[in-house]
């Protein structure tokens, strides 16, 4: 019997983007104002999607679903939600 290659086994492997580029689901985009940010990391810990960098406080827009939890939880108001259609 021919050996089955890794790609054809009915097994999934851990990797990013298992639901596709989920950034396309977004209607509002979180934007960080680094002048107001005090690096408390609340946005990082509450992000359900793990798209926020802990040190730099930057957001990976490829996968961010735009739920707005980070903006809601930010104690200094440094994150605001911007409509995707308003460029």
């Amino acid at each position, binding site marked *: 019997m021919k050996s089955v290659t890794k790609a054809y086994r009915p097994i999934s492997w851990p*990797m990013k983007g298992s639901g596709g580029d989920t950034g396309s689901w977004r209607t509002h985009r979180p934007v960080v104002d680094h002048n107001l940010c005090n690096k408390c990391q609340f946005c990082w810990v509450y992000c*359900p999607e793990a798209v926020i960098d802990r040190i730099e406080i930057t957001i990976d827009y490829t996968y961010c679903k735009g739920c707005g939890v980070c903006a809601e939880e930010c104690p200094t108001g440094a994150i605001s939600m911007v409509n995707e259609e308003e460029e």
Partner: protein
Amino acid sequence: MATSIKKLPDIEQVLSGNGACGGCPATMALRIVGKALGTNAIMLLTPSCSVASMGMTPKLGYNWPCINITFASAGSSASGITHALEIMKEKGRLEGELPTVFSWVGDGGTYDIGFQALSAAAERNDNIIHFCYNNEAYSNTGVQRSGATPRGTYTTTTPSGKRQPKKNMALLMLEHNIPYVATATVAYPGDLYDKVVKAKNTPGMKYIEILAPCYLGWQFDMAETVQLSRMAVRSGAWLLWEAENGKISFNSPSSNIISGKKAAEPVDEYLMKQGRFKRLLQGSDASQRIAEIQGDIDQQIAFMRERAKINI
């Protein structure tokens, strides 16, 4: 004192771009659980939103070996795996530290369908962690009532409000005499992290229940997931406690409510934020319905306060 946010480890076990809804409390909680458990673990999933969130083959959204099992078998499957690992270690086929076996199950798979197998695993005291992420309904199939749904809640199977109170599952698990039981919620990540670390380092059966406010099922704005979780604790609708070897201790801020240092906030604001309650609180019987829900909460607080005094 709970671990501060800045001291949580960097490790990410929930990978970006999975299939969960935006603002999903289950992946939010699972991230913190992943930080506590590390990579050396085996995950079991019964049918729930978390299975749908895994994404599509050949990609997987969680960085653990995951096994999808039948709805009723969370307890028995986890028991089988942990026994197999122990025997492999005994026969010398496995070296190093044994992986943590944990099941990640919704409230349907814990309170209702999976209860029999879970109860049996608890009675055998098998070395597993059972996580119940409790969104108080069968949200994955379109929000039907479950044993965890509180009184007065709108679901698709209780259109005029559920008439029965929810059951206290964590206390039921405690009565199985297992070494560790805890309740947590997504708004207090440091508290959740500490509890999972404690569970990981305790041999035997562990049960951790996490309140997960699901914005679809509870009908609120998805950005307010953490707010709702916090309001549930502050109003006393959800109590944070842990029990090591049967001794119950309450965690802040629930400890203040239990000791009477700070009164629980009235439940009205918490109810009015959620469409599942609010839509049934428009008529003339609204105050009576709120009083009923408040009565259930007060009764639970009073009961848990007295129950914690039993240390035999």
